[in-house]
């Protein structure tokens, strides 16, 4: 419950219509897409301008009430679950595309713009905004920036951070700063832009962003390669990259995931194959043709059962759309779906794939795997039931092993979903205690009151690091 006076002050800033502490509203902003996390905020507020955000931050600071900025709530790390209560800040009224600059190839947006609208608007100017998280139809650009979202095109084009050139940010003390700009080069001080991207709303509230656009690729071809076992598929991925071909998309999908996706999308996916690679290349027509030919040959040499090219743009679109639905489609199998995004150097992909398989058997839990193979970013997904506590315990152990293995292989606990509250206990596994402390020092300097999205990134208690027993002589 918020103090009455505080509610009054907030209403004075945004008006009666845009602040509420009603039970119903607080309840529907108590979750995001992360299973197992839910906590009600004490109020929900919808500012219309940076100035309003500043005033809200000052009021929250005065009353020591947490602020959780939230886009569309599609994140998978409990990053926007208000686990410490406080106020959920929505950007539904700050959702304009402010400018598209065709001379500097930039777009300036407010945080509430949907990712898909950014993409469409860029296409309208014959330009391209590459980051394409699977939730791009739903997610906001503000959410993408805060989580540094990836997507299917990460291998060739990078992720959200590679397309954020400048930010306007409201700090915990209510001040506004502007970082970066429409600049190809800028070494004036620390790179605050990069620091803020992916900071999960813990360092400041992003109120505006300048995005980088690139020329639109002229041609695109999509191809599906079928394999009779997981490891061959995974090895083919490393082989393609080793042959110096960088496709726009190189996605890995295992059989159970294929079956789940097919039962939703019904587009005739080859559910008999044990693993499938979805490969896409874009660029100049000649380059695309050459790369596709090389990749087809490599797939066949490595032992693919078949390699087929999508016949039309519609077919290609249907394939990538189907892949985007993988996570939720898997949810058909069991009531609870827990998805992780352990990431390793590409060369270690096959090793991680078989480790995930073994782990699933060892703990007797069902884990399907799909993901951005080209990025070494896998999505081992566990189908379970959160009501079955004994099973949930096994699931947690299995994932802990997978995280440990990923780190051991030189990888990370999360490639693109963020730490949030969910993976906070594992952060030290990747960073070491000194690494976490360095980050904590930044957080303390910028937000001494721990006002901004508290409880995220930094865990109250770290998980004891698992040291995996080495198997055999390896």
């Amino acid at each position: 419950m918020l103090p009455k006076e505080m509610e009054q002050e907030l209403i004075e800033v945004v008006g009666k219509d845009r602040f509420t502490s009603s039970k119903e509203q607080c309840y529907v902003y108590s979750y995001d897409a992360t299973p197992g996390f839910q906590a009600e905020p004490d109020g929900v507020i919808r500012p219309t301008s940076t100035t309003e955000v500043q005033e809200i931050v000052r009021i929250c600071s005065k009353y020591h009430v947490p602020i959780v900025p939230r886009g569309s709530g599609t994140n998978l790390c409990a990053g926007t679950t208000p686990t410490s209560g406080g106020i959920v800040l929505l950007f539904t009224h700050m959702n304009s595309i402010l400018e598209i600059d065709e001379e500097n190839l930039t777009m300036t947006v407010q945080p509430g713009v949907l990712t898909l609208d950014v993409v469409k608007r860029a296409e309208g100017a014959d330009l391209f905004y590459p980051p394409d998280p699977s939730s791009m139809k739903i997610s906001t650009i503000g959410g993408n920036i805060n989580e540094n979202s990836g997507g299917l095109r990460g291998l060739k084009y990078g992720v959200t951070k590679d397309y954020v050139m400048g930010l306007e940010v409201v700090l915990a003390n209510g001040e506004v700063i502007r970082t970066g700009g429409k600049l190809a080069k800028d070494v004036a001080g620390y790179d605050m832009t990069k620091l803020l991207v992916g900071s999960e709303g813990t360092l400041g509230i992003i109120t505006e962003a300048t995005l980088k656009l690139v020329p639109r690729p002229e041609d695109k071809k999509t191809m599906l390669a079928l394999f009779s076992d997981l490891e061959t598929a995974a090895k083919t991925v490393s082989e393609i990259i080793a042959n110096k071909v960088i496709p726009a998309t190189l996605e890995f999908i295992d059989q159970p995931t294929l079956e789940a996706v097919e039962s939703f999308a019904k587009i005739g996916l080859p559910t008999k194959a044990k693993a499938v690679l979805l490969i896409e290349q874009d660029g100049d027509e000649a380059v695309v043709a050459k790369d596709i030919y090389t990749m087809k040959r490599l797939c066949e040499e490595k032992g693919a059962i078949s390699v087929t090219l999508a016949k039309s743009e519609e077919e290609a679109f249907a394939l990538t759309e189907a892949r985007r639905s993988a996570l939720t489609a898997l949810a058909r199998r069991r009531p609870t779906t827990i998805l992780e995004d352990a990431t390793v150097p590409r060369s270690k992909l096959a090793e991680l794939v078989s480790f995930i398989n073994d782990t699933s058997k060892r703990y007797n839990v069902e884990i399907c795997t799909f993901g951005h193979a080209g990025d070494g970013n896998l999505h081992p997904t566990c189908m379970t039931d959160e009501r079955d506590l004994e099973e949930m315990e096994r699931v947690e152990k299995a994932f802990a092993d997978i995280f440990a293995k990923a780190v051991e292989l030189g990888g990370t606990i999360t490639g693109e979903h963020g730490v949030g509250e969910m993976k906070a206990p594992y952060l030290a596994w990747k960073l070491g205690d000194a690494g976490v402390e360095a980050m904590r020092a930044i957080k303390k300097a910028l937000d001494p009151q721990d006002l901004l999205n508290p409880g995220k990134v930094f865990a109250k208690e770290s998980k004891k690091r698992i040291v995996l027993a080495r198997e055999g002589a390896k």
Partner: protein
Amino acid sequence: MTTDLQKSFKEQMDYDELMNCTRCGFCLPSCPTYINSGQNEASSPRGRIALMKGVVEGRIEPDEKVEQQLNECLGCRACEPVCPSGVQYGHLLEQARTVINEHKSYSLPVKMLRKATFNYLFMSSKRMHRVHQLRWLYEKTLAQKLVRASKLLTLFPGEVETMERVVPKTVPPKRLNEWEEVEKGFGKQTKRVAFFNGCLMGTMFYETNQSTRLLLKTAGCEIVTPKKQECCGALHAHGGETEKAIQLAKRNIEAFENLDVDAVISNAGGCGAGLKDYPFLLRKEADWEKRAKAFSDKVTDISTLLASLDLGPLELSDEVVTYQPSCHLENVMKEKGNVEKLLRKVNGIEYVAMVDKDKCCGSAGIYNLVQPKMAMRILDQKMVDVAETNASVIVTSNPGCLLQMKAGIERERLTDSVRAVHIVDLLADAIRKRDSEEGDAHAVRNRH
């Protein structure tokens, strides 16, 4: 505090189905009320499911605001085809509304109105006919002129006044029976189909039913129209009157199940979807689920059947046509694209798809009468989308959508330049035109 209402929620809601929602949010962009409420999570399918689940789990009380959110849902079910987890949102909504309705003490006038509509009028096709007679008298006598001149209807809530103006002119009551239980098709027989008359389709939209018969016959179908059939019960089911819906479903299954037909044809997406949902409706009725399944498997929309049959060459005068699909035809019956296919077969007209055509028009059964504010907000956006196509004809596939589009045309003052028409009436016009031209040609030949 656990109220009786909360207890019933716990007992009657399908908790496993609620659990199937992973909260991924894929449904959000498909939901008209989410978009038109300025992205209010509580007005989205994910939010509504969270609220239902919260009530079942005892985390929140089913207070007025929760109830309001459940009422404000159009029930268009656009969230279902986009849900990768396959959550049966429509069924959850009906369960929740049934529980709420059971515990609701309506004010006397509302109670009487609900009783008159659900328990009396829509429970019997005979009574529907009697009302039709009254409407006919209302139009024939001075009553209509007086009511319109007095602006009496503007006193009613919602869009009653607009709706009164846009409903089709009543056909003389004696014409309502101008059909036989069995009618042969023209030429070589292609199919034997049963025709679902529908309560409103059989009276208020009688001409559309006759157009449907003409098309079926032209395509060589033998038509069986059982006299014993009743209203599909969809309105009851959506309104939380499950018991009544079950009664109607049983009577319809009995009327149709022994007819030995290839398909049961409906020409209203809302009714067709109601019929398709019988297995769910009768899931708890001993021995009925199987019969319901056998029946609903045969239910097909007229557009789907016609798209697969030959109607001969069709031509209409040069016009731009757009199409507002029936949500229930696409999202529940899952029959998509056939109306467009038919439109492309008609020479002369040009079919232009409108953006967001798969978004509900806001009609949604009786939604536009009970939730006028949201319905009109949705409609106004729809009319902007229509305008962009430059169409002078808006084709629909369900009577509710048809009236809503007509209301939209009235609101935009476009009655002189744009009209709304049911797909079967449009196609039947082409056939009548062809027949009369052939007739003329025949007459000319005879003269020489």
